[in-house]
């Protein structure tokens, strides 16, 4: 019955989303505008490079990757850091702590409905359109299933990172600066704004040892379906490791900050 407790949040989140119909619509439009921007930016980059292959990726490879990355961003970004900050500053944290649930899961599941809604209204249509426009570049097979698994783990990794940053904000009592920094680091090093293939060799090695690339690079690479199966399994294994590792770390961070809240009144 424990699961039911959490799934009920998912349901409520979906209902909540539908309450704000207009915002869903605007999100789709905003997303579209951003895609147009990406299209022209990378067209210019490829034109100036003079070759049709840059770092082993053709213009259409890059574009497919980035379009999907943008679509992924719409459901991956959970704004949990803001949420934690708001809860602290408004004193709503007290109410959340008085629910018979762990705050970390409470926050995650409260957002899960939005996540699913965004996946359905932005990612899925984008993927279908990309697939129709590009013909057979993306295979429709096992890679779809693998992608769902990888995306789910990516969501969890991303959430844990957010949560850890959020608990740090409890100590610093300011959110904006730290959150912006986190966002820039995650978006850049995860391959959400620039494909990891474009990174210089040194940076690539560094990124390989960091959890960020598991958020965007891994699920997208798997979805595009050019990697051999053993690579895919290796990448997913790495994701699993980060899920567990960050899970433990976020728990430790939370236990520290909850001490601060209960001792010093937040």
């Amino acid at each position: 019955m424990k699961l039911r407790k959490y799934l009920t949040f998912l349901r409520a989140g979906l209902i909540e989303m539908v309450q704000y119909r207009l915002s869903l619509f605007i999100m789709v439009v905003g997303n579209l505008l951003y895609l147009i921007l990406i299209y022209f930016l990378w067209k210019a980059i490829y034109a100036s490079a003079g070759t049709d292959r840059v770092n082993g990726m053709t213009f259409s490879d890059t574009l497919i990757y980035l379009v999907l990355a943008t679509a992924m961003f719409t459901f991956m970004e959970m704004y949990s850091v803001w949420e934690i900050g708001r809860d602290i500053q408004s004193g709503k944290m007290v109410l959340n702590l008085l629910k018979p649930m762990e705050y970390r899961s409470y926050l995650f599941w409260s957002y899960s409905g939005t996540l699913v809604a965004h996946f359905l209204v932005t990612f899925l249509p984008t993927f279908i359109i990309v697939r129709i426009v590009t013909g057979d570049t993306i295979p429709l097979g096992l890679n779809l299933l693998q992608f769902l698994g990888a995306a789910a783990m990516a969501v969890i990794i991303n959430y844990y990172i957010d949560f850890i940053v959020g608990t740090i904000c409890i100590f610093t009592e300011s959110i904006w600066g730290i959150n912006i920094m986190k966002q820039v680091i995650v978006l850049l090093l995860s391959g959400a704004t620039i494909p990891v293939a474009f990174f210089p060799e040194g940076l690539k090695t560094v990124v390989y040892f960091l959890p960020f690339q598991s958020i965007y690079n891994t699920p997208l690479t798997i979805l595009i379906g050019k990697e051999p199966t053993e690579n895919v399994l290796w990448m997913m294994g790495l994701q699993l490791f980060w899920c567990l590792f960050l899970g433990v770390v976020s728990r430790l961070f939370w236990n520290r900050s909850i001490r601060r809240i209960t001792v010093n009144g937040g």
Partner: protein
Amino acid sequence: MAEKVIIMKNVCKDFKVLNRHEGLKGSLKDLFSRDYKIVSAVNNVSLEIEKGEIVGYLGPNGAGKSTTIKMMTGVLEPTRGEILVDGTIPYKNRTKNAEKIGVVFGQRSQLWWALPLIESLKLLKDIYMIPDKDYEDMLTLYRSLVDIEDLLHKPVRQMSLGQRTLSDILAAFLHNPKIVYLDEPTIGLDVSMKSKIRTLIHALNQEKGTTVILTTHDMGDVDALCRRIVIIDHGKMLYDNDIEHLKKFFGSYRTLKLRLSGDMKKEKEEIAAALPVCSVGMTEDEGWITILVDEEKRKVMDVLGQIQNSYKVRDLQLEEISTEDVIRKIYEDSAAEREKEKNAASADANTSEGGGAE
């Protein structure tokens, strides 16, 4: 003897507060400052609350009421002392404790902003894992107490403050908790809504035997709901007893208001001279002479008789001292007491400084 649901023994809560400095330079200094001072928010409070009681927890703003409630609910850990809520230590078993309590903070809602009330209730049903039957029974009870049909399908953000508070109270009682903490539930509500909410709280307390801890600044709430009140100021407990005792605690004061024929100003002076044990005044519009009588010293009837012997009374009113008056007097006395202590302390400091200079 009834079961004790809350036991607090010599509970203290201190906060460490950074001494802030003024200006830009001061703020920069604060960045690295280790200069803390200890502020005592709750000081040696001991309390025992029995099952099914409605206890009014009163005190002026900043008295330490919310801090106490936060300790009872387990979101704050006491610095010293022991708290037991229904047999468990709340801050050590916060989640377990949370299943047994309900909370309403009048200033903010715990409901889901964008959702209709019924969806919020369903969410709570799953969070607290309320069995279907209990949930249905509770809704039936709610229907019999208040008119909720219109509210159920209205998103919380579209509700008026009164409707929202009502909904919050329903949400807090939904899982049939042992204890419900109500923090200023009637704040900002109109008269009829206030009375509706009081009736609801009273009915739920009677029906379910729920213990209710109520903090409020509205003496109407206290008069309507509480048998027992606890008063706290600056973290110290000032009073803990029945509401009836409260008035006796201060002597039994009554105010006699008289309208006499003749020059009332002159008569007031004469009466004041004739009744040294009473405090004699006049209402603002000079329509009434007011005589505050301490019944322990002199009976009102006695005073009235004496006045009737010498004057012609055209009209009279007799006012009981209200709970509000008594509480105000307690707050003011407590403030005066602190002022006196402060003066005494600074006087001490002055003499010792003077001594040093010699």
